[in-house]
């Protein structure tokens, strides 16, 4: 660590936050972390294969400057927000103008501090919006003129899977930003993965579709980093997502009204797809190489987006994520944003709900399935209460189980968490099934056969499941051990190992 900020204080002395995806890519390039590839690359598996290799090797972010077989000159960038293996938050930190050498704890504190201070967006005229350089409407729209990547062999189609979906609540002025992948069907239609239980899907299934009304939406592709990160977060229903993006950025996000509806999208977007998700219409979605790291079947019937217009910058840059490459020992954009965006957001949410937790951190190699929470246990039953709150609010669909560790355990350190599990989780008394067989199960799960998953319209599995939590906090006896003694013991052990030539930073600890 090279900076001299007092430990624990929010960082404010970084560079300027990136105003656009391409500005962020230039910052990566200046830092030697971008690999501009000028050779011809096909959208058909080639771009994703190169990206997967880069992910697996913890290499630079690949930017494909010359994509073949697309009528509109456009570029691709693979997993642009993937963090480095040992420090997943480093590239998101750079995107937000934070020092790239922050420790994990400092990064979390800084992001949480920014999220506590939303900044209202400003609305700009279409003439000032970069995403309106080219406008195509109606029959002039052809999604296949753009190089949407075919990501995994055996995917059901080409995907846009790194965008911000903007959708309005029909009964209030609230607009939700979210991330739901879209499989391109033909020139003017896509099927969108909407899993009931999440905010935007609930708007569609339980408001618009029940009233037999189309839901106006915009897919803003390649928006500025702060907006991209906000779309992945669980911003409370009714809150202004653009203001949280502004808070995260530290300055207002610019919005612009869509061309064919009155939704407002980040003006920084590389490309915007405007359209309507139609009631009662379904098309195949998937199979898809999912974030668990395997090919997910069966194909499901999902709601249909009918496209009314596409607007974009000159030579737009289309970002994509190679889902499935962020498990095991490698990272991708999904697993990175889980750790670097959803973690601080969840921590803040739990603290705001009155739980005095230290940090809530997604386990970096199993995106969405396992979370680690470091916390004190002030009273018996506290962890059960905490689990109940999480599973019945925002964690019910994707999160399978939680690991609770002591407040002084670093949940970003896989080593420390495994140590806590080994030392403090009694197989007889500390593994708790929760809500036995009553919780919704995300149909993308790896545990059920396709037949068991079924094909329910709203997306959740037919069967219910149990969630679980592991109490890996120390008991009262070991907790009584003075922290200073343990730290001294740890230092002594490190010193012995260091003298013996053991590498103490193999790249899986929190670093910093």
């Amino acid at each position, binding site marked *: 660590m090279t900076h001299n900020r007092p430990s624990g204080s929010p960082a404010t002395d970084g560079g300027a936050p990136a105003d656009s995806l391409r500005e962020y890519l230039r910052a990566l390039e200046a830092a030697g972390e971008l690999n501009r590839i000028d050779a011809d690359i096909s959208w*058909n598996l080639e771009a994703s294969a190169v990206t997967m290799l880069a992910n697996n090797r913890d290499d630079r972010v690949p930017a494909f400057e010359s994509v073949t077989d697309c009528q509109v000159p456009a570029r691709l960038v693979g997993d642009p927000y993937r963090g480095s293996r040992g420090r997943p938050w480093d590239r998101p930190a750079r995107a937000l103008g934070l020092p790239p050498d922050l420790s994990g704890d400092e990064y979390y504190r800084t992001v949480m501090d920014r999220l506590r201070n939303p900044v209202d967006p400003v609305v700009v005229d279409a003439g000032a919006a970069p995403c309106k350089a080219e406008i195509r409407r109606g029959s002039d729209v052809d999604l*296949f003129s753009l190089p949407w990547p*075919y990501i995994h062999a*055996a995917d*059901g*189609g*080409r995907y846009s899977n790194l965008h911000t979906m903007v959708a309005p609540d029909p009964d209030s002025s609230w607009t939700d930003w979210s991330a739901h992948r879209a499989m*391109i*069907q*033909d020139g003017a239609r896509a099927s969108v993965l909407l899993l009931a239980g999440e905010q935007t899907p609930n708007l569609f299934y339980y408001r618009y579709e029940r009233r*037999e009304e189309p839901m106006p939406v915009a897919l803003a592709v390649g928006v500025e980093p702060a907006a991209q990160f906000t779309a992945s977060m669980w911003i409370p229903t009714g809150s202004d997502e653009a203001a949280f993006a502004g808070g995260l950025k530290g300055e207002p996000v610019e919005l612009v009204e869509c061309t064919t509806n009155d939704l407002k999208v980040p003006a920084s977007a590389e490309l915007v797809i405007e359209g309507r998700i*139609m009631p*009662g*219409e*379904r*098309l*195949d979605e998937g*199979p898809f190489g999912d974030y668990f790291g395997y*090919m*997910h*079947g*069966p*194909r499901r019937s999902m709601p*249909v987006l009918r496209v009314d217009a596409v607007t974009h910058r000159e030579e737009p840059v289309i970002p994509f994520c190679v889902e499935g490459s962020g498990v095991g020992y490698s990272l991708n954009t999904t697993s990175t944003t889980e750790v670097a965006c959803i973690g601080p957001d969840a921590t803040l949410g739990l603290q705001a709900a009155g739980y005095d937790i230290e940090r809530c951190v997604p386990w970096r190699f199993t995106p969405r399935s396992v979370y680690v929470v470091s916390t004190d246990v002030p009273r018996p039953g506290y962890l059960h209460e905490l689990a109940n709150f999480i599973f019945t609010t925002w964690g019910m669909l994707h999160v399978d189980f939680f690991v609770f560790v002591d407040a002084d355990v670093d949940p970003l350190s896989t080593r420390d968490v495994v140590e806590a599990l080994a030392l403090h989780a009694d197989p007889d008394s500390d593994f708790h099934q929760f809500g036995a067989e009553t919780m919704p199960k995300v149909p993308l799960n790896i545990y059920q*056969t*396709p*037949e068991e998953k079924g*094909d329910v*319209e709203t997306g959740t599995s037919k069967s219910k499941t149990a969630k679980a939590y592991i109490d890996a906090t120390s008991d009262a006896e070991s907790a009584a051990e003075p922290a200073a003694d343990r730290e001294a013991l740890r230092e002594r052990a490190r010193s012995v190992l260091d003298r013996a030539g053991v590498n103490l930073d193999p790249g899986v600890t929190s670093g910093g």
Partner: protein
Amino acid sequence: MSDQYLTSEDHLPADTGGEITLQVTDQETKHIFTTRARIARDAAELDDPDPLTILRGPHENREEQWYIEIIEANISEPSVDDATLEACFERSREGSNVLTARGEDVKTLVSYLVETGEYDSVSTAIRSLLREHLSETRPELVDRYVDLRTEREREETELRLGGGHEK
């Protein structure tokens, strides 16, 4: 457009003989569309065959090589209105399931099929013909109906096993 296509077994009608409606994916562009076509395991059975890969299994990881002769590309099947389908389903279960229609031409043709032994009765003939026709022309509608019926049967079974009472 390429001359190689792909589809899932989910989209195959029960009877693959004759002219069928089929959703296929263009292997080169990944364009997904519904086509009127003939398909066969043996290319020699078609006049103008192109390769068609049929994906089988729940994860679509088993491939079978078939052939397709596209008669009309990119036809669009009307969308299924689920609410209407569900209402029709409930009405048919709760009320009369008798279907009446008047039509001299239809009666003549169906009677011919019965009298020549192709079908046992007029009602069997009408049910079979309609089912075959819809399987080919409206596979999405038939699929949704089968899903709906399966779901209802599953719910009723659960109620019975759980000692509950049907509504």
